[in-house]
């Protein structure tokens, strides 16, 4: 597995030398991705990639992110969305049975899901 030093699962960093400084990110050079950055993001997203995929994604991400750069031209806009919370009484309702909820799991035991080992 192609790994980087940090796999805490906290998306606090996006790659070696990319320490989340927004001034650096605003610089188009810093926004370009290299293979290590692709590997790091894949690690954060828990998606393993083979080397060919890393190479293809590195080129494609550079092109796509360059296109996204045009968002810099968008003016700050007031967002007056009419969002309201939708509430309902907290009452017991019919839901899936335990058997139904477990019916698609790869592995179950005593009515529980069985996941992979933690370490």
């Amino acid at each position, binding site marked *: 597995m192609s790994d980087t030093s940090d796999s805490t699962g906290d998306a*606090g960093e996006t790659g070696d030398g990319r320490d*989340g400084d927004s001034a650096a990110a605003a610089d188009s050079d810093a926004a370009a991705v290299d293979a290590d950055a692709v590997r790091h993001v*894949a690690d954060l997203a828990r998606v393993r990639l083979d080397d060919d995929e890393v190479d293809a*994604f590195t080129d494609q991400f550079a092109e*796509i992110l360059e296109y996204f750069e045009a*968002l810099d031209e968008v003016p700050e806009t007031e967002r007056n969305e009419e969002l309201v919370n939708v509430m*309902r009484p907290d009452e017991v309702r019919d839901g899936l049975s335990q058997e139904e909820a477990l019916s*698609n799991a*790869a592995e179950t035991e005593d009515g529980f899901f069985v996941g992979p080992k*933690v370490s």
Partner: protein
Amino acid sequence: MSTDYNAFITEETIDGDADAEGPLAGATVAVKDNISTEGIRTTCGSEMLADYVPPYSATVVDRLTDAGATIVGKANMDEFGMGTTTETSAFGATKNPVDPERVPGGSSGGSAAAVAAGEADVALGSDTGGSVRCPAAFCGVVGIKPTYGLVSRYGLVAYANSLEQIGPIAGTVEEAAAALDVIAGPDPHDGTTRDLAEVDGVDDDQNYAAAADADVDGLTIGVPTELFEGADERVVETVEAAIDDLEAQGAETTEISLPSVEHAVQAYYVIAMAEASSNLARFDGVRYGDRADSDGNWNESFAETREAGFGSEVKRRILLGTYALSAGYHDKYYQKAQDARAWVRQDFEDAFADVDVIASPTMPVLPFALGESLDDPLRMYLADANTTPVNLANLPAISVPAGEADGLPVGLQIVGPKFGEETVIRAASAVE
């Protein structure tokens, strides 16, 4: 027949209520394979869910069968709805019944192809950035993307919740509208659905099928220059001829400008990828979905499961979404995309102060040849230039056949104000 175009992933039947009456009684319906069907596998076009059998049906499926429609199969689609051609399906590409050398559009390509090939009377698709309208345009049929909140998403496997709606595809505007009559309406299982009785300025007594009366006398149609620039000349000519025909029937046209839409594709992809990266985190092989054989710990097992289960386009969007949300890039991409979304919404609102509907090509291009765009994701994204603004603004839109260019179908897109479905249906029925 179905094997010819590969329109279906699974061909199984759910019988409709035999005692039901109404326009959908006895109709056959193809359901996109990201809409849950109890007891019938629902794959989302993905290896990940190849064996997933939902224990419940989506609200829209129950409403169709209650109205007497019979579900005849689960339609092929781009994996998790991510694509514009139906070529990213793990179950092989669907062919366009109009020209089997070409794609049917996507992501609801199987749904549109099933209708175009006569394998179903009506189909359901889902439209996150154009996924109902694009295949409708490419296959020469009608597709409706409803206002956000009109149709329940309960049982729709989520890709980008804030953008997507389930919508009908059919051979005529009236048939598509009749299907919308059946699936529309509030659902306690989806908190984002709206009860039209509680929406200001909207009559809650909507009858979409009856609105297909082709009466456009006095209707004002805005024609935005931005959605014609850069489009294929053959598409522009066909669409302009259809708009001229509406004018001849008594509609008035006026040129308008929507400057924000130049940024719609960028904003759409940043938001959709960000939401996808979060939504698809659930596929870890524990509660459902394929699980890779792995000796590793849970992080390694998840990563291997997701490597094996997802195709390239899905991985690409999850990774770019993760990137766009990460510290240092969140403000640059995600926040700016939300600004662009608000700007697009404002632009449409301003335009609808002066016009009743807005017309443009649905797709700026003719249907791609099979394989033509698969290795060039950005080119595929750019084809969504005219459809994505509608999702960003939560508006209703329809794609109706405008005619043909070089023997290939061209779709006219008509966009209306929020919950203005009757108006877009009325205008579209005059194009037929």
